[in-house]
């Protein structure tokens, strides 16, 4: 008797759970069916952009900014009458900072949603996860992000900052000002290792010397031993190429151990994850970073100020407008220019249009596609944070050309298709 009673109770629980799950999935499928229902005739159907950004998980800090930037760009395009007379629509699944999810969603937006271009990805791993899918499906892909450089692929375009832009300029500025002894700490993965290699090459070219180099595994948040090693080496400049929330704990620990005098140089901090706003001063005191854009650029550049204002008007709750947001925005705009020029969204035609060296006067000045490498010619600004984390821009470089791939590796994508990533470590 007792047994049957318990059984019944179990089944009630089971049925309730099932109903709950069914309800949930019902809402979901209703949502998606309205999303993908707009197939229709190609002529007046909207043009679709697949935006794959991490709206949750480790990388959502930047991912959400980038999604918002894309939404802003598309809204502006649509308000100006759309592209080729058609409206532009965004398909934006959440990739959850998960590489597998990137692969699933890349296939989904290409094959099911039939988008005309895919943009997105923050971590290099997520880019590498989906790049083969782009190439296999002959899909145009914009990686609007800073990264370690070196991707030479017919279908991939990068509109962000790469070592060509950031490291030569940065090292030149800090070595000239502070001296030749350089200590590098970098995240122990592709981006960190490759960037550190660039730092080494550039330092040696400038007559400097690497007095120490250390790689920190991702996810490490305690830096006591690293800090004591740096102190022992007594460098003139500390280059930090740290990545992720955990590793950014370095700065607080660094400042706390009484080292705010030593200048730091980086390519990653402040402009992306606005550490100078999130951490109390003087964590990032005396830090230099080379950027293609950051919110504070609005102080010296009217176009940047206009962009920042537009952004906050549309997304008043956002906390910062960073470098990757601008890159995403400019990326969308460059693609739009190319589509207008090609008169179609056909991938091959758009690539040809992009390879004519299309340019766009964006928030941070003119950005222009370099046809041989599929990267962007950009203005580079040196940003400096003082003890109060106030940002100034002591130096800038006009139209830096990303020519390492073409000069060192002989890549010319206008002549020869390639599908690989070169690294200085090879």
């Amino acid at each position, binding site marked *: 008797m007792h047994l049957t009673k318990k059984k019944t109770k179990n089944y009630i629980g089971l049925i309730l759970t099932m109903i709950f799950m069914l309800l949930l999935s019902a809402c979901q499928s209703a949502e998606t069916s309205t999303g993908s229902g707009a197939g229709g005739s190609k002529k007046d159907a909207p043009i679709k952009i697949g935006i794959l950004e991490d709206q*949750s*998980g*480790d990388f*959502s*800090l930047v991912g*959400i900014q980038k999604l918002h930037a894309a939404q802003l760009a598309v809204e502006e395009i649509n308000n100006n009458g759309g592209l080729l007379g058609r409206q532009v629509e965004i398909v934006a699944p959440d990739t959850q900072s998960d590489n597998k999810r990137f692969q699933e969603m890349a296939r989904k937006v290409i094959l099911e949603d039939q988008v005309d271009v895919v943009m997105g990805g923050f971590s290099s791993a997520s880019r590498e996860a989906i790049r083969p899918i782009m190439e296999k499906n002959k899909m145009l892909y914009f990686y609007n992000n800073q990264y370690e450089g070196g991707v030479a692929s017919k279908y991939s375009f990068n509109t962000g900052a790469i070592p060509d832009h950031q490291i030569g300029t940065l090292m030149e500025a800090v070595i000239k000002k502070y001296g030749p002894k350089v200590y590098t700490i970098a995240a*122990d993965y592709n981006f960190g290792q490759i960037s550190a290699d660039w730092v080494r090459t550039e330092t040696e070219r400038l007559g400097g010397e690497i007095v120490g180099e*250390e*790689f*920190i*595994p991702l*996810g*490490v*948040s*305690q830096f*006591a*031993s*690293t800090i*004591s*090693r740096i*102190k022992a080496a007594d460098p003139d400049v500390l280059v930090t190429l740290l990545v992720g*929330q*955990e590793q*950014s*704990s370095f700065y*607080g*620990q660094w*400042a*706390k*151990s*009484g*080292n705010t005098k030593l200048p730091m140089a980086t390519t990653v901090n402040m402009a992306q*994850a606005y*550490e100078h*706003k*999130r*951490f*109390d*001063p003087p*964590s990032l005191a005396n830090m230099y970073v080379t950027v293609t854009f950051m919110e504070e650029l609005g102080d010296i550049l009217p176009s940047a100020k206009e962009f920042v204002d537009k952004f906050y008007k549309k997304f008043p*709750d956002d*906390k910062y407008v960073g470098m990757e947001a601008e890159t995403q925005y400019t990326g969308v705009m460059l693609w739009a220019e190319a589509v207008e020029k090609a008169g179609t969204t056909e991938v091959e035609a758009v690539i040809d249009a992009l390879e004519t060296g299309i340019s766009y006067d964006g928030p941070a000045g003119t950005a222009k596609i370099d046809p041989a490498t599929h990267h962007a010619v950009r203005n580079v600004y040196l940003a400096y944070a003082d003890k109060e984390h106030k940002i100034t821009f002591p130096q800038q470089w006009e139209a830096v050309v990303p020519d390492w791939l073409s000069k060192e590796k002989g890549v010319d994508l206008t002549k020869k298709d390639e599908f690989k990533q070169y690294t200085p470590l090879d």
Partner: protein
Amino acid sequence: MAIFELIYQFMNNFSFLILSAVGLAIIFGMMGIINLAHGEFIMLGAYITTLATASGVPLPLAILLAAAGVGVFGLIVDRLIINRLYGRTLDSVVVTWGISMILSQGILIIFGPSLEGSSTPLGSISIAGATYSTYRILLFFIAIVMLGIIYWLFMHTKFGLYSRATMQKHDIANTMGINTNKMYSLTFMLGAALAGLTGGLYAPTMAVSPTFGSAFLMPSFVTVIVGGANPLIGTSLSGGVLGVVNSILDILWGTFYGRLGLLVVAIIVIRLLPLGFSGLVEKKLMRGRGI
């Protein structure tokens, strides 16, 4: 000079390992539950502290608030969910995984992907020409004091007696009139509160975000694995041993080997002493008493 370095290193590693592991160890040791939401409990503590300091609460109070807040949260979670799973160790893995998903995404939805941190309090001190963060040295002593308090709690209070009895033999404790369910609830609350305390203590030294807890998860698991079921003896011993190993490898070969070293030590220890250091010590004690 180098010896001060090494000592400072060790103090740092030791306190980090102990503080990240102790809440997990108590829940695992007493209840046999592997709490995969441990990192998120720590994260919650960091959020409470950071938000409290931002609204003007002094830091020490804010840290205690984190412990209390997460403790209460732990109690609620226990009453709603965990108490239905006593004795079902492996089911609790799934459930706590679910809880951790809800917590980290929930915090992301509510507070966004990051929080403006507060700076590390206290200055730095110089010893033999090198400077060290005072707060971090303080953390070491806090870890020691905390172990002391836990020792007192388990060895000299009624709660401690009952919970040791419950840990030893669940059914016998029951027949002795101990309400084991209540003991489990209190234990879970205590473990959660300690996680909250850890989050509060480290909030001023690290970037606070919904993934804050993930930095603690691996070290805490390794410490508990090496320590074994006894949350007091095991955790402090394993914190000590791992702290030494980590510091030495760190100084000799860098952070990567320090981290890999932790995992390798854990694997070796389980292989040699499946019950961790607790098992070893208990065996020794038994022998000592016996003959």
